[in-house]
Structure formats: structure tokens, C-alpha cells
């Protein structure tokens, strides 16, 4: 197994083709918009290795934010589940995998609903930055072992890096450990291929930092009304554009129980779920189903199209521009 050296840099992993000219992409069930709900059910260490804290506010332990976040799992999640269950909302849980082993109530809630488990690392205070190849390889092996041990042999299909972290080896290791998608890259409204050195297929799954309660409510102080207006504006525009250009699109709605599970937000969470459930052009689905459909129907065609685009482009460059 290769070690140490990053085979591709991050910019090189992008497989470029403009939305306006690429071959048409469909979504599962022929939907115009595939909507996936991504609850980030996270654990933050009381004292994290290396001393990280949730907010960088005070030295560890930061009890204000430890408790704020833990309240998400102790209280908020269960309120969120009432909305999820009421609207039978399929969910792709971005899970701190330590919860599988250490919080059986959370694990059972996930398994009872047959949520798809997307790795979100072991703890959200243990980012992948700076890991050696072997350390990160061991992290992925542990992730799959946790899933197999606690989820009836199921293996994990994708990852959102803890704190959206990674290394130059992450894409290679995702594929090596049998994963099909990664949600860290938010560069498109459709799944996209990500280039890997060994040629394995890896799908960039459109996640969102806009339809996401942490960046919008926690960091930008939007009200519940403003946040849901933003979400509905996004979904409406995606539907209109998909009807116009025939390119089906993905809308991800990312929540965190410590925010979206708060009492004041419950009505807004219910409102957005009701909105997407009321429109039969929208398919409420999981990241895994979207990735499977994309790999089965579109991945190779998109890679081939982008390769032709790149070939034409390279022919127009000077030798100096190709290798500056």
C-alpha cells in the first residue's frame, strides 16, 4: 500500500465541466430535485486529544459549549425525531462514530429508522488534519469496524470529514475502504466525479453550508424564519432551473440537534419537511441512493465528457502554460 506521498493535490481532483454544457444528469425515481436530510449527530470530547474546543472560546473544558452540544444528543435529537417521524423523512446521519459504541440510545434510534450512516469521524474534536497515511488508514479501518460491529455488519458508504477536515490522502483512502462518496466538496448542485490516483470511482455528494443550521444560525445569526426562507428559495430555484435545462439537481438540508432540535426551531424544521413532502417533483432520499444512481447511470459519461473538454483545452495552451 502506498504511503506518505499525496498522489494528487486537491485542485487536481476536480473534474470540471460547466453545468450548462455537461451531459444531462437524472436523479433517483426521475425526480427533478433529490432532497437529502443530513442530521449531524456529533460528539464533542469533554477534553479532546490536543486540547481542541468547540468554539475556541476558553481553554478546555469549555462547559458552556460542551453542554450546548451534548444537549443536542440528550434532548434535541429526540425532538428532531418527532419531526422526522411525522414526515417519514429519510435521513443520512452524519455521525460521530463514537456514539455507536458509547451512546446505545442514539445508535438504536438510528438503526430503528434505518437511517443511512455517513461517517463524521470518531469525534468532532478529532479532525483528520495532519494524519499520516498510516494513521488515516487506521482511522478508516476503525470506522468500518465500528459500523460492522454495531450495525449488523453494514459498512459505511460515505463520509463528511469531522469538522470538514481531511488530508491529501483522504480521497484515496475513502475508495480503499470501500466508500463511494464524500460530502466535503460543495462545488456543484449535482454529484460529480472526484479524480483518484488509482482510478477508483468516488462521488462528490453535494452537501450544503447554506441550508445548514450551523453556518446560518450559529455563525451568521439568521432567525428561523430567515433560514427557512433561504431553504425554500433554494429549493424553488433548483426546481425551476431543473425544469428549464433538464438538469436534475440535489438539495441537501443539514441539521444539528443542538440547533435544529431546539424548541424554538421545531416549527421551522417541520415547515421545511412539509414543503418538500408536498411537491411530487422532489424525492426525499439518502446520499447513498443518489450516489448509487449517479455511479450506475452517469459517472463514466461525465468523466468522458470532462476528459474531452480537458483535451481540447490542453491543445490551446502553450508549453509554458501547461507546465509553468
Amino acid at each position, binding site marked *: 500500500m502506498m504511503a506518505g506521498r499525496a498522489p494528487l*493535490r*486537491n*485542485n487536481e481532483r*476536480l473534474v*470540471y*465541466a*460547466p*453545468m*450548462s*454544457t455537461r451531459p444531462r444528469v437524472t436523479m433517483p425515481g426521475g425526480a427533478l430535485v433529490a432532497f437529502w436530510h443530513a442530521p449531524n449527530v456529533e460528539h464533542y470530547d469533554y477534553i479532546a486529544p490536543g486540547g481542541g474546543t468547540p468554539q475556541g472560546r476558553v481553554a478546555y473544558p469549555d462547559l458552556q459549549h460542551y453542554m450546548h452540544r451534548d444537549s443536542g444528543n440528550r434532548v434535541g435529537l429526540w425532538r428532531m425525531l418527532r419531526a422526522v417521524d411525522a414526515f417519514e423523512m429519510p435521513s443520512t446521519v452524519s455521525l460521530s462514530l463514537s456514539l455507536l459504541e458509547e451512546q446505545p440510545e442514539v445508535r438504536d434510534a438510528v438503526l430503528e429508522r434505518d437511517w443511512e450512516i455517513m461517517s463524521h469521524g470518531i469525534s468532532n474534536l478529532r*479532525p*483528520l*488534519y*495532519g494524519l499520516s497515511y498510516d494513521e488515516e488508514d487506521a482511522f478508516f479501518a476503525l470506522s468500518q469496524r465500528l459500523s460492522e460491529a454495531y450495525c449488523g455488519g453494514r459498512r459505511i458508504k460515505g463520509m463528511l*470529514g469531522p*469538522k*470538514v*477536515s*481531511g*488530508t*491529501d490522502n*483522504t480521497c484515496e483512502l475513502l475508495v480503499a475502504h470501500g466508500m463511494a462518496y464524500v460530502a*466535503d*466538496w*460543495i*462545488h*456543484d*448542485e449535482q454529484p*460529480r466525479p472526484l479524480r483518484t490516483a488509482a482510478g477508483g470511482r468516488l462521488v*462528490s455528494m453535494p452537501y450544503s*453550508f*447554506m*441550508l445548514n443550521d*450551523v*453556518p446560518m444560525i*450559529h*455563525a*451568521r*445569526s*439568521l432567525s428561523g424564519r*430567515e433560514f427557512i*426562507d*433561504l*431553504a425554500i*428559495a*433554494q*429549493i*424553488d*430555484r*433548483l426546481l425551476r*432551473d431543473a425544469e428549464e435545462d433538464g438538469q436534475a*439537481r440535489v438539495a441537501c438540508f443539514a441539521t444539528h440537534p443542538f440547533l435544529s432540535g431546539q424548541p424554538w426551531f421545531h416549527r421551522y424544521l417541520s415547515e421545511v419537511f412539509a414543503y418538500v413532502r408536498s411537491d411530487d417533483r422532489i424525492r426525499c432520499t439518502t446520499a447513498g441512493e443518489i450516489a448509487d444512481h449517479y455511479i450506475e447511470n452517469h459517472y463514466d459519461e461525465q468523466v468522458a465528457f470532462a476528459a474531452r*473538454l480537458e483535451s*481540447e*483545452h*490542453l491543445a*490551446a*495552451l502553450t508549453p509554458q*502554460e501547461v507546465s*509553468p
Partner: protein
Amino acid sequence: MTLIAHPADATVFAPDLPASYDAHRAPWSLPGDRRLAVSVLLHAPSYQDDVPDGAVKPLAMAGGVGRDTSEPAHGQVARLSQWDFGLTTGIWRLLSIAERAGVPVAVSLDEHGARTVPGLARGVAARAQEIVVRGSAANIILSPTMGEHAERAYIANARESVARLTGTSPTGWFGPERSMTPRTTSLLRDEGFSWFGDWPVDERPVALEGASRRLIALPHPLETEDMFQLYTRGLPFADYETLLEETIEQLVADADVTGARHLGLSWFGWVLGQACFADVAERTLRLLASHPDILLVTPGEAAAL
């Protein structure tokens, strides 16, 4: 009489910017007695996770997870991919919106985007009414730590790549992160540019003086820039739309007092091109196109008025 002895290492006013203030200079006027000229500049910058040795990066940038943070740790692709959204999707959505509204637009491209993103330069050139040069990359900026030779090469290389790969002869410049040095304007003039858009200064084109003579500063206000309002200030998008409408209304009204005004809209593909924000662009451009007092021009045309 001079009472203040400024420290020797202080430069009190921007070089080559004439000291001429509203109500103390001849009014600007527009063809057909229009009150407000509006130009729209769409940015399609490329973000580089790795930058060449010696390149200068901004200390802080918008985008990524949540706040306007400093450079993310290597291995986080949040900002890279968010800015790349502008190239895969956002710029094309904004171009479609402008075409439907009948509004001419300029698009700024940088050297890395033109050189490394297949088909971007060609595709944009086929649809934009003007191409503007946006330096080397979104996060490779001009800095006073650069020597004159390095700065001149930065400008010349960016212009050469963007010009050749778009098949155009750009006359306008907009620096990444609006970065500049005290000598940039004179170098832009030397390299053949006739206008630049970085300075959020007067509400009309400004002819520079001294070493930068014959270069026009075409103002693009921060207050109406999508990245600044929606990310740096965190304004809700509905309030941003209201701010744009109120700005346009006031500038039109002010023309009776001040003479004609110019508004340079500076919008990013990765910001206003997002689905959740795009209706703001759509409604604003339609408002502009239907307004009898507004002259719609490209930035290069505005600078030449």
C-alpha cells in the same frame, strides 16, 4: 501653514487619486440625460488550495464553513470547493439570468482559472460582453512585499493568459481581494489597462493623476457587493435585495443634485449564483432593465463615458 508633522513612513492620501469632492466639481452627465449608469461585473475567480512558492495569500477570506475565517488548515476543501461552485454552476446561472433580462455583463477571470479550468475562458468569452482580468487566482494577491519586477510580471502574465485564452483584449482589471500596492495603478496603465474596478470610492468614474494618468478608477461599492453583504456582514438575502433597490432609487434621485451617477455591481458566481440567492440577481437585473432613467453599459463602456 502646516501644523501636523506626519511621520516619515506615513502616506496620508492614496497616490494619484484627485482630491475632488461632490458639490465641488463639475457634474458628470450621461447620453440621453440618463441619471444612472449601471455596469455589472460578474466574478469567476479560481481558488488554489496550493499556491506557488513566494505567492502572497490573503490573511482572511470569505467562504468555507461559517465565518469569515483565516486560511483553513490544509486538507479542508470547504473554501476551495465553495469558490469552485462559481465556476461549475454559479457563473453560468448568472449569465443566463443576465441574458434573459437583456443586461450586458462583464466577467472577470484570473490566470489560474483561464489556464487550468478546461473550457472556462472560452465558454465565458462566448457569452460575456466584456472580459476583465482578475489577477493570478482568488487567493494569490498583490502585496507591497512584492518587488516592482514581480508585480509587473504578475499583472502582465495574468493579462496575457486571460487575453489569449478568451481571444479578447481586456482593458479592465479587478484585483483578487481588491489587493493593490501603491504602484499598482501606474503598472496597470503601463500594461495597457484603461480602467480598474477595485476602489469602492466615488459614485462616478475617476480619472487618476500623476504616475497613473490616463487610468480610470471605476468604482464598485462594497455596500452593493454580494460577497461583502451576504458573507462578511451576514445580511439576510431579502435585506440585501432591499438594499440594492434602495441604492438604485437613491442614486437616481441624487442625479438632480449631483449630476449623473454610476453604480458598478460586483457579484460573484459562487455567491449570488447560488440557487438560494439567484432570484435576487434576477429581480434586480429586471428592475434595472426596465428603468427609464438607467443606462446599462459594461464597465469598460462606463469608464469611457
